[in-house]
C-alpha cells in the first residue's frame, strides 16, 4: 500500500492575480489544512513546494509567483495541461477549537495575519477556516506586504470573505502609495497600536527577514506561528534538505508552521538558509533590505 499517492491531472483553472502571480486550480480532492503545502511537478525538471491557498475538499488552489525557471515554465501552462501534485504535507496553522494550541476560544481569538509576497495566499485559506471555526470576522486583521501596490495579493479575496462571511476580515495594504508606507513590521506596529489589546495571536508567512522584523513589536506573552520556507526535495522527511539548526526540525514535516517555542530555538532564522546541496547560504544585506523593504 502506497501512503503517498501522487495525483496527476489537468489544470482546471488559471487566475491571473498580478502580472507575476497566478493561481492554479485543480480538481483534486486532497485533505488539507491551512499552512500545508503540496509538491508540484510537470515532469520536465523540478518539483517544488507551494502552499495551498484554497481548498474545499474537492478542488485545490496554489498561488504562484514567477521567480525562476520552474515557475516561469508553469506560467506557460494553459488550462488542461497536465501537472502532478503530491501532498498535502507538513504542519498546519492553529485554528481555535480544531487543533491544539493556546486555550483561547474562537470568539475571543483576535489574530493578526501577516503575509509577505507569496506568503499571503496560505493566510487566505487560514482566514476562511478561522471564520468557519467561529472567529468573528471583525477580530481578524490581515496585513499584506508587497513591493508595489501591484504586488499586493488577494485584496479582493480577503474582501470577498467579508461578503461570504459576515464581518469582513480587514485587509490592510502596505508599502504602496496612498496606503501605509513602510515595512510589514511597521504596519504590524501600527495595527498593534490601533488595536491595542485586541490582537492576541500572530500568524506570519513570508521570507525569514520579514517575519523576524515583526518580532521586536511582539509583547513577551504574545503567542505566534510562523510559516517557514526551506529548500525541499523529498517533502516526506527523509532527505534532510529542509532541516533547520540546531533543533533538527524538518520544515517539511514538523514545519512549515512553527510555534513560537520552536522559532525561539532557531539559530538560522533570518541568518542563513541551506541551498540545494546543503551548503549554507547567508542572507546578505541586499537580501535583508529586499526582504525588509519589499516583504517578499
Amino acid at each position, binding site marked *: 500500500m502506497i501512503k*503517498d499517492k501522487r495525483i496527476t491531472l489537468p489544470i482546471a483553472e488559471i487566475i491571473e492575480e498580478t502580472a507575476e502571480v497566478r493561481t492554479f486550480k485543480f480538481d483534486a480532492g486532497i485533505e488539507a489544512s491551512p499552512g500545508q503545502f503540496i509538491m508540484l511537478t510537470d515532469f520536465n525538471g*523540478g*518539483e517544488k513546494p507551494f502552499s495551498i491557498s484554497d481548498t474545499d475538499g474537492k478542488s485545490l488552489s496554489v498561488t504562484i509567483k514567477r521567480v525562476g525557471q520552474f515557475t516561469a515554465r508553469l506560467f506557460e501552462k494553459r488550462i488542461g495541461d497536465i501537472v502532478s501534485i503530491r501532498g498535502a504535507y507538513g504542519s498546519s496553522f492553529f485554528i481555535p477549537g480544531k487543533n491544539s494550541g493556546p486555550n483561547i476560544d474562537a470568539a475571543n481569538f483576535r489574530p493578526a495575519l501577516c503575509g509577505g509576497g507569496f506568503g499571503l495566499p496560505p493566510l487566505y485559506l487560514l482566514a476562511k477556516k478561522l471564520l468557519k471555526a467561529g472567529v468573528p470576522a471583525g477580530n481578524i486583521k490581515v496585513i499584506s506586504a508587497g513591493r508595489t501596490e501591484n504586488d499586493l495579493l488577494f485584496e479582493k479575496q480577503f474582501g470577498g470573505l467579508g461578503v461570504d462571511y459576515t464581518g469582513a476580515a480587514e485587509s490592510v495594504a502596505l508599502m504602496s502609495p496612498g496606503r501605509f508606507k513602510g515595512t510589514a513590521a511597521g504596519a504590524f506596529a501600527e495595527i498593534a497600536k490601533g488595536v491595542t489589546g485586541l490582537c492576541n495571536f500572530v500568524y506570519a508567512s513570508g521570507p525569514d527577514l520579514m517575519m523576524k522584523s515583526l518580532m521586536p513589536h511582539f509583547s513577551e506573552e504574545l503567542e505566534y506561528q510562523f510559516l517557514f520556507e526551506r529548500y525541499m*526535495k523529498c517533502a516526506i522527511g527523509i*532527505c534532510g534538505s529542509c532541516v533547520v539548526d540546531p533543533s533538527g526540525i524538518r520544515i517539511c514535516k514538523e514545519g512549515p508552521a512553527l510555534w513560537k517555542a520552536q522559532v525561539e530555538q532557531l539559530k538560522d532564522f533570518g541568518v542563513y538558509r541551506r541551498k540545494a546541496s*546543503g551548503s549554507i547560504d547567508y542572507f546578505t544585506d541586499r537580501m535583508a533590505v529586499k526582504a525588509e523593504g519589499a516583504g517578499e
Partner: protein
Amino acid sequence: MKELRTDFLGVKLSSPLVLPAGVLDISFSSYKLVSGYGAGLITTKSLTKEARKGHEGPVVTEVEGGMLNCMGLCNPGIFEGLEEIKRFREISNVPVNLSIFATDAEGFTELAKEANSSKADFLELNLSCPNVSDEFGVPLAASEKTVAEIISSVKSVCRLPVIAKLSPNVTSFTRVALAAADAGADALCMINTLGPGIDIDIEAGRPVLFNVSGGLSGPCIKPIALRLVYESRKAGITIPIIGMGGITSGEDAVQMLMAGADLVGVGTAVYYRGPEVFEKINDEILSFLERKDYHFISDIKRII
C-alpha cells in the same frame, strides 16, 4: 539486564542501530536529532570533493514496499561536510561515520586524506552509487579489481578504520565482498539501494523521477539484504558487517543480526515511522531479548 551496547572496531556504541548515508544527514542538526532518538552511529551523507546540488525533482517516489530515490548525491562538499561533523562534536559524543564518494581510486584517496584531520570515527567508501554507472548501467565499483584498488589506496593514507559500502546490483556479490575484505577493508556496509528502478506516471505518460530511474530502498529490499549478509558470512567474511536495507522494526533488526550483521542501518524507515524509529526499534529489540531470555546483541548474531 538486557544490553544494547556493542563494540564496533574498538569504539563503544550505545546501540547497534546506524543512521545510514543519505537519510537525514545533511547537517549537524539532523545528526543530533537522530542520535537523540538513540542511533548508535551516525553516517554522513556521502560527501564529494565539490558541493553537488543533486538531480532535479522529482527525486523520490514511493512504490509498493519501498521508495525510489535519485537524490543525485547532493551534498555540500567535503569541506562544509567536515564542518558539520565538527559542529556535531561540540554537542555530542555519538560516533560518526564519514561517507565519501568519488569516481576513482585517486578521488577517494584525496577525500580520505581530508578525513584524517576530521572528527569522524570511521570512513565509509560509497562504492555503490547507482547513479554513477557506465552506459550499460554497471556501477563503477562492480568489479572486484576496482574495489580492491580503491580500498588499498585509501587504506594506505587513512588513519580511520575503513568501511566499504557495497552494491547489491552485481552478479557476484560475495566475490566483491571477499575482494574488499582482502584489500584491507575494516568492515563492510551492505546494501546500498537496489536496482535502480523506474516508476511511471500513466496519466502523464512520463517517468516519475526526472532522472528516470532511482535506487530502491525500504522494506521490500530486506530479503535481499538479509541474503547478501548471510551469504557473505557463508563465503568466509569475518570482518564486521553493517547490515541495512528495509530495516523498519525490531523484528527486522533481529533478523539482520541473525543473518550475520554486527550493526544494523535504518534509513527509509524514517519515512514510515519518523526519526523516533531508532528509539522504537531499540525498545523492540530489548523486548525481544527479554522475551527470549537473551542478554546481549551478540547472543543472537549469526544464529541462523
